[in-house]
């Protein structure tokens, strides 16, 4: 025994020395971390005690030791389960500089290198984030800024964010769900981050919002407002509530509006949110917000159970200056976070009420309807299954990656507790939301008097139609009014325009809801969930004043979520105020259009909300600056003999403003044999029309046999945004700037001419365009400008004396065929101008004639320009000078190619050309036009 003890004593250092080293290391790390973030830096609200810090440090040391001993390696992870890796390299002095006085020192950029697919490039990196978990542990949240001409995956700035919660997939899965629901989200995926070759663990690779995000989601550039007033951004002496401080929102610099006007939309929204909800203010809110999108946002919040959009922070609002609507951008949603889970494990939030904006929305019928539709679509289509399948994959990948993550957080106990509970919780949420929102509920009805049917609606599912079944057939629709009482005062909505009769059934498009009553309930540690909503029955009166007294009402049926449901008849329903629903049914537009004929004089800004029919021969005379803003369908069908004219009131007067078709209700408008001249545009802080004729946000608009001339001042003669338009036999002559400017639109242009436009004849941005049998002459800039992810097919077009006939750039794909390009300064060009795009323009010119042009076709290294089986005079330059915005030029190698091209008029091949593969996505749009291509001809075929 004694010998054994002596031996143990002698060799005790084998145990005590390593143990002492480990202990010393633990003491040192715990001390430094606790001292920094619990004694020096006030990390409220995420302070950690000495005990927690010690446990955390020990757990971390243990985990790293285990990884080293077991040799866990990402290479051992099956390929299909691996996350992408991001490789960063930074010098030790740079890293030390970031860490020297956290968190203050971490926010200054330092130089670093980032591994691109083709090698290392210089970038800048810094830490980011407001709270401790971003920079208080070994795994840091990092922001990377690339050089302006070396984007990474199309991004100038992106974040590598340390996941906040044990499940790690909260944000990634939330973003994915939001994206599947059609919301604007940043690109986000989980990645392994390596710094100087060492695995720093799983991070969220998240795009920083910029114009590219908007473009990728099919939105035009506009203002993006960020509302954050917590932590470092708090200002003492103010309320720090973002919805009452418009000046405290940070606005991204994309606005085209003058600086003093640039906050007007936000100010208007905040003014509204700080007033009292009523029918008028809720209607105004519906105007200002894109309720379809906000409905999806509301559904998204429910599905991911997020409380992270509140009075103090995390708002990103996009103002679309063309649609005049706000949309939410999804940022840091942290869905299904442990912090937002009910302590009792049961209560799932059925309405998210974390800000005054939520309170307003939950009283708005348009929002409630849109939210319901979004939920219904999610549950009844394959979205849910698709999402759950992706979630499964994400969870599996992250589980593998975490086994090799030396800096994984939080500690093992938390991970082991929370991770298995994640998926059951998601399932629980989905089940609860589906049950609460898609269950039918009850509807009761009673006769309030001879002309009034009173309905009592319960359950969250909205009623979209009420059908009244009578004893005998009805001969014609009767007027119907929906009456609701707020504070004892009746509010009527005329639904007469939507009433229809089917035999003995009267169908009224009345949209009805239950009430969502504010309910305060204490939830431990979850202040954001104290305010919830409880559904309560709401009473609605359907007044049918001209109902024949002798035709007995037999029953009432309603449609809820597309499903008919029989209403239960009761003897009596007492009248009751509706306190929490406004704008249940939006007013219906008049069924009979307004008619304009003869001379119509317009002064000032004239808004027309009804449908309008303009008769042949009508002359619309507009005073200086006068504008007509149509909000309904316009049918202006002139004739060759009696065209409709839009012209100045006096020949010498200053230009009139704009004729604008704006909004979905303008869809189906027709302008035929219209002659428009002498207009300009119209800009106020909340509306912008940069052209004489503006077509925004509407579908299937036809402009046929029309002539446009002599516009002034503003950018374009015709401008379309978010529209689908057909222009047939249209002439644009002498545009002051661009002739036709199409942004985010689908256009068909045929048999039209664009003559003497000072700017571009046709300017396409993020558009889909089919152009054929058109003439482009004397364009001051480009005949066809094809930019920013535009897709185009152009056939049988003649370009004469244009400065540059066709230019494709910035992710655009264009196929031009059977066209003549003659006597211009330059025929065709493909290039990259906007560095946000990975590629330049891809332009293919088929079976065309390019002769007598001064400069050779050119393409830069990011672009592709193929002249295939064309008649081309002159040689292709090997190099050319690309002009820069600052007036200088850069010498570039010309990437343009001649394929089977020569100087003769005879084609080398005559076999039919297959549909271009790179346009396959849009085959439905272009197939017919492409099918008319004549392979046996170079240039415009005879007879066209």
């Amino acid at each position, binding site marked *: 025994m004694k010998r054994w003890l002596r031996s143990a004593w002698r060799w005790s*250092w084998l*145990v005590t020395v390593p143990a002492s080293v480990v202990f010393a290391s633990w003491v040192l790390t715990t001390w430094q971390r606790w001292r920094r973030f619990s004694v020096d830096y006030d990390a409220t609200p995420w302070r950690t*005690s000495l005990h927690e810090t010690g446990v955390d440090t020990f757990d971390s040391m243990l985990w790293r030791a285990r990884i080293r001993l077991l040799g866990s390696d990402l290479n051992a992870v099956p390929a299909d389960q691996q996350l992408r890796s991001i490789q960063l390299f930074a010098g030790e002095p740079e890293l030390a500089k970031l860490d020297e006085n956290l968190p203050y020192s971490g926010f200054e950029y330092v130089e670093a290198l980032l591994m691109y697919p083709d090698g290392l490039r210089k970038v800048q990196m810094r830490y980011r984030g407001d709270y401790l978990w971003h920079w208080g542990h070994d795994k840091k949240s990092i922001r990377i800024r690339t050089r302006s001409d070396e984007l990474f995956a199309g991004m100038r700035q992106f974040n590598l964010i340390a996941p906040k919660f044990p499940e790690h997939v909260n944000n990634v899965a939330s973003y994915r769900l939001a994206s599947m629901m059609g919301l604007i989200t940043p690109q986000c995926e989980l990645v392994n981050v390596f710094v100087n070759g060492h695995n720093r663990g799983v991070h969220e690779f998240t795009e920083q919002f910029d114009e590219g995000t908007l473009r990728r989601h099919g939105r035009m550039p506009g203002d993006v407002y960020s509302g954050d007033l917590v932590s470092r951004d708090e200002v003492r002496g103010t309320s720090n509530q973002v919805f009452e401080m418009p000046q405290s929102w940070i606005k991204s610099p994309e606005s085209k509006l003058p600086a003093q006007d640039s906050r007007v939309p936000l100010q208007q929204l905040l003014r509204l949110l*700080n*007033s009292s909800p009523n029918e008028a203010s809720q209607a105004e809110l519906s105007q200002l917000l894109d309720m379809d999108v906000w409905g999806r946002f509301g559904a998204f919040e429910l599905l991911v159970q997020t409380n992270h959009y509140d009075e103090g922070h995390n708002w990103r609002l996009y103002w679309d200056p063309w649609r005049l609507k706000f949309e939410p951008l999804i940022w840091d949603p942290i869905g299904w976070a442990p912090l937002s889970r009910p302590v009792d494990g049961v209560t799932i939030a059925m309405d998210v009420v974390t800000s005054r904006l939520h309170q307003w929305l939950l009283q708005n019928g348009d929002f409630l309807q849109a939210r319901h539709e979004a939920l219904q679509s999610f549950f009844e289509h394959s979205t849910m299954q698709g999402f759950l399948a992706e979630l499964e994959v994400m969870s599996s990948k992250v589980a593998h990656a975490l086994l090799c993550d030396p800096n994984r957080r939080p500690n093992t106990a938390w991970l082991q507790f929370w991770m298995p509970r994640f998926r059951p919780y998601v399932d629980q949420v989905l089940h609860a939301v589906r049950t609460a929102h898609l269950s039918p509920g009850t509807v009761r009805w009673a006769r309030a008097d001879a002309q009034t049917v009173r309905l009592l609606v319960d359950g969250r599912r909205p009623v979209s139609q009420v059908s009244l079944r009578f004893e005998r057939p009805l001969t014609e629709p009767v007027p119907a009014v929906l009456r609701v009482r707020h504070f004892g005062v009746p509010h009527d909505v005329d639904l007469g325009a939507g009433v229809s009769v089917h035999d003995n059934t009267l169908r009224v498009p009345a949209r009805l809801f239950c009430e969502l009553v504010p309910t*305060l309930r204490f939830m431990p540690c979850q202040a954001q969930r*104290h305010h919830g909503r409880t559904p309560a029955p709401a009473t609605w009166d359907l007044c049918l004043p001209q109902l024949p007294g002798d035709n007995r009402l037999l029953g009432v049926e309603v449609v809820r979520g597309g499903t008919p449901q029989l209403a239960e008849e009761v003897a009596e329903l007492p009248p009751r105020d509706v306190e929490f629903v406004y704008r249940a049914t939006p007013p219906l537009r008049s069924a009979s259009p307004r008619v304009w004929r003869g001379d119509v004089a317009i002064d000032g800004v004239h808004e027309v909300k009804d449908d309008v029919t303009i008769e042949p021969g009508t002359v619309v005379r507009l005073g200086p600056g006068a504008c007509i803003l149509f909000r309904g369908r316009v049918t202006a069908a002139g004739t060759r003999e009696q065209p409709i004219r839009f012209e100045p009131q006096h020949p010498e007067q200053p230009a009139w403003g704009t004729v604008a078709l704006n909004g979905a209700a303008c869809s189906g408008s027709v302008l035929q044999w219209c002659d428009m001249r002498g207009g300009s545009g119209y800009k106020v802080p909340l509306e912008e029309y940069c052209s004489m004729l503006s077509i925004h946000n509407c579908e299937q608009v036809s402009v046929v046999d029309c002539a446009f001339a002599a516009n002034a001042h503003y950018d374009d003669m015709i401008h379309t945004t978010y529209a689908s338009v057909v222009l047939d036999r249209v002439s644009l002559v002498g545009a002051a700037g661009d002739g036709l400017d199409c942004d985010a639109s689908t256009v068909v242009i045929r048999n039209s001419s664009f003559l003497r436009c000072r700017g571009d004849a046709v300017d396409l941005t993020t558009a889909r365009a089919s152009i054929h049998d058109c003439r482009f002459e004397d364009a001051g800039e480009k005949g066809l400008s094809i930019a920013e992810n535009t897709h185009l097919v152009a056939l049988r077009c003649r370009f004469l004396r244009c400065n540059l006939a066709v230019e494709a750039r910035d992710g655009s794909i264009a196929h031009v065929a059977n066209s003549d390009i003659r006597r211009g300064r330059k025929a065709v060009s493909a290039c990259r101008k906007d560095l946000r795009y990975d590629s330049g323009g891809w332009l293919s010119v088929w079976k065309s004639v390019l002769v007598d042009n001064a400069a050779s076709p050119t393409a830069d290294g990011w672009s592709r320009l193929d002249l295939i089986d064309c008649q081309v005079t002159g040689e292709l330059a090997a190099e050319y000078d690309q002009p820069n915005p600052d007036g200088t030029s850069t010498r570039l190698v010309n990437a343009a190619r001649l394929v089977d091209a020569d100087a003769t008029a005879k084609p080398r091949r005559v076999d039919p050309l297959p549909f271009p593969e790179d346009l396959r996505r849009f085959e439905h749009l272009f197939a017919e036009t492409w099918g008319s291509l004549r392979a046996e001809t170079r240039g415009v075929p005879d007879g066209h």
Partner: protein
Amino acid sequence: MRRKTAKALANLGRLAGVAVCTLAGVTAMLWSRSPQTVEAFENRLRDALVGGVRQQWAEAKAEPDQARQRELLQRLLGRLPHVQRQDYLAEIVRDCQLRLASLAEASGNLTEAVDWMRRSVAFDDHDLATQARLGNLLCRTDSTRWQGFDLLHALAARFPANPGVVPVLAANLIDAGRAEAALALLENAHRETQSNLWTVFWDTGEDFDLHRACIVPTVHDGMLRLRFDLADAKRLRRLRFLMPCFASMALVAPRLHVEAGDQVVEIDASAPPAMNQVERRSNRLEATGHLEAWFDVVLPELPAGRCKITFAASVSPRRSRLLAMPALRPGMAALRDELVRHGRLDALQQLQQWRGTACSGLPMQCFFAEAESAFDGSRLVDAAIECANDGGLEVLFHVQKPATVLRIDLPSSVAGLEFRWSTLEVVAGGRHVVLDPRTMPLLGTHQVERRNDVFVATGDDPYFWFKAPAGDRIDSVHLRGVL
């Protein structure tokens, strides 16, 4: 080295190793089994690290001698050069800098005061009060006045209705002879959107501060309503209504309607048992523009379960008194005369409304006695100045006592302010007697002068007294006028 020594050293090393391991074991045991001990250790450790600084701060604050205090504060700041704005000790640095600025200002050394405030703003530029104070100090020196105005204008542009910024800028504009610009600034602030977000706290006997939620009210036909359900009224004893930030409004006849089970209760909320930054005037509650105005309503015992609550009051929006305070400065009186001269009635009305708002709520007293010499603190009634929407003022004293002599005490601390009292109506024994204060005989005045139809306060305790109209009992005294 001798073998024995080496052996001793080796044993010593082994002993140290065992000691460290023992310490590690004890630490592990404490960490796993007694977090309370670790917490106590943490507190002691923290105290050892920063307790000295806090003690030095407390001593410096308590030091009565200004020179010594200055020295202590500077010494303390000297210990904290490493502290940054989000550190725990940042509050000490801020406080020291503000105190040093105050000391310098008190001693007339504006340059030093400005220097300390500049350091304070450089240390933490997320504090409005500090920045406004720096702006104010800069404006008081000719050479830096433009910097002060630049700073204050920038703050006012970003926080256009903030009562910590706008009055400071307005006051400096007035003092710089730009009273009309100050008026425009106040009007601009008044036009800014006011918050509508109420916060309701419900008290169930525990964690009162945590039981809260925000509500947007409805206002219909001048009636404000906050309607909500409480999920459970069990042990509910009171509600606290935190009014919107910087709210300025009058809630007339506020009441609470509560339905719980089969119990329906109506509660008059015009006499709150507790309130903060809210003024009670007869049957109404007035919020005057503060950040945290609240009042409580006590509830009777209610049955457990859901209860339906409606708070309702007739609401009158008001100009913020916090914003209005600069309107009492002499420069604004000069502007009033100028506006009258030029017949600019709209601007005049705005100005008078601001001046009235600033005066509204200021306390006045009416002493009553049988003889001139008999005024004492036991025979007086209080009343507050009421401001009408047209800028007019009135004060109504409910005396209800016999008196032959009456004394009206104007608000204190308004030296230089001119009151244009137009009528003084005394109701005595049911008889109305209307006097003209501009001409009626006075028995005497104290720190107030009557000149050119105007009562001008000349000191901090201004009052005048006069013979009461005939009658045994004075029912009320009603004074009307403008500023």
